[in-house]
């Protein structure tokens, strides 16, 4: 306890000057990396490691010709629709599994199996069974993203907020559904958010996998087609936005999570 307090105090007193120095460090390190990259690409050749300026030019070209915005748009639609579906399905089965032992014993083995099976391995199956229209691609995103959502909802619901339920009951709230909506889900909210960053990572992976497997549109398709032409500068230029998409989503979720935590306390 005391060590913790001491620690926060120490961190706080450092806060004033640490961020500035750290930012300078980061900028210098990034510049050094870029210089090393540029020199190294001169040694090994532009196919092996395209020079920084070629990547920048390729990025500019992809943006100006509209290829990147269009692909990113397609990918984002797929990601959002897939995530919404996965959230709905994950909450439904998560509530079921978290609240009913029978559902837990009959249903959760399938979801555990789905969790440890790489989504890529399921893509050919989805292709054969559902085709590779928007439905099939959405299904891949759902398969990738649904289990972490489900697990966080069900495990959060399993820790019964007993006192809160008692209070709500004494105020006349009746019925499992009403309790679920007003008490259990809200009490679980903070915990349910906790696994979200993993889930968004997985959704982005599902999206990329779905698009890459058949070179069908989106940013995954874009990368695959430039990759097969061995235009590594364009490959790099198209991968970077995808990395930022993953990081951005996680940061966004982190912010939402912090808000919910504030709400909870």
């Amino acid at each position: 306890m005391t060590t913790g307090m001491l620690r926060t105090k120490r961190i706080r007193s450092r806060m004033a000057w640490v961020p500035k120095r750290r930012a300078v460090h980061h900028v210098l390190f990034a510049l050094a990396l870029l210089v090393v990259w540029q020199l190294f690409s001169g040694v090994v050749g532009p196919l092996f490691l395209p020079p920084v300026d070629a990547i920048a030019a390729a990025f500019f070209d992809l943006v100006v010709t509209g290829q990147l915005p269009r692909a990113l748009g397609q990918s984002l639609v797929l990601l959002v629709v897939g995530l919404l579906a996965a959230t709905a399905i994950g909450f439904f089965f998560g509530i079921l599994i978290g609240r009913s032992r029978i559902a837990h014993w009959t249903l959760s083995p399938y979801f555990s199996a789905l969790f440890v099976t790489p989504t890529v391995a399921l893509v050919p199956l989805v292709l054969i069974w559902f085709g590779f229209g928007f439905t099939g691609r959405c299904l891949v995103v759902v398969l990738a993203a649904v289990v972490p959502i489900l697990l966080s909802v069900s495990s959060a619901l399993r820790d019964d907020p007993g006192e809160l339920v008692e209070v709500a009951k004494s105020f006349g709230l009746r019925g499992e559904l009403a309790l679920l909506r007003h008490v259990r889900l809200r009490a679980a909210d903070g915990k349910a958010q906790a696994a979200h960053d993993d889930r968004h990572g997985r959704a982005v992976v599902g999206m990329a996998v779905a698009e890459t497997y058949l070179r069908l549109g989106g940013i995954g398709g874009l990368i695959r087609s430039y990759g097969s032409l061995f235009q590594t500068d364009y490959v790099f230029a198209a991968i970077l936005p995808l990395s930022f998409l993953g990081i951005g989503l996680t940061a966004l979720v982190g912010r939402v999570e912090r808000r919910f935590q504030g709400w909870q306390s």
Partner: protein
Amino acid sequence: MTETSNGTSARRNRLLPLRAVLRPQVVLPLASLAAFLSAWEAVGRSVNPLLFAPPSRVVGAFIDLLRSGELLTATATTLNVLITGYALAILVGVPLGVVMAQARTFGALVNPYFYGIFATPRVVVVPLIIVWFGVGYTGRLFLVFLWTMIAISTTTADGVRNARPDLVEVARSYGVSQTQLVRHVLLPGAVPFVVSGLRIGAERAVVGVVIGEMFLQLTGLGGIIVVNASQFQTAHMLVGVVTIAVIGTVLIGALDLLERRFSSWKTTSN
């Protein structure tokens, strides 16, 4: 009299294991599995047995692939890359994690890049890996190694950073050297974190192997999936999928148990 009482106790003894088996957590999953498989069998047969591959056909394909030796060769290929890449990732990841935590500036500088690589889906990096390592063993190994190594090194660094300051202070006051501090205080304290890193890394490793086998070089279990999918041999393809799922379940399940055992350490050390 004695005979009847003996008879009932013997019957009770015989019933005891039966009762243990009849517990709902055993019966319900089995019943659900039976219902699932028979529904799949019925639907698959009536719609299109070739495309929807009912379980009976999958079993047939399993025997088929086992007899031809294809399944064993493929599993060996997959496990070879999986285990080698995973072991390399541990060998590099744990020391690197310690360094990242000890040299704080270095850790802070490297962290965002590791994070960016970790957040990038591996399927889209495949074209670069083809250029860098070719489509052979090395490329597949790299797909397993890098992402698993990042998972292990970042969690190890977290663990070392979270070392109890009082223990570090005591050790310092006894004048221990840096290597002694790492060996006897920092690493043991980081064990629960390392174990969760091993679990996350294992998940990544299994995915990495399959990506390598499906997109880089058609071999191993991933190769079985792609090749049979292109010939619409759904049953054979499913044998590959199920084998991968079994490997994943065994590996990740074991590490999950290990992580749960060590997670109590985590709460006490905080």
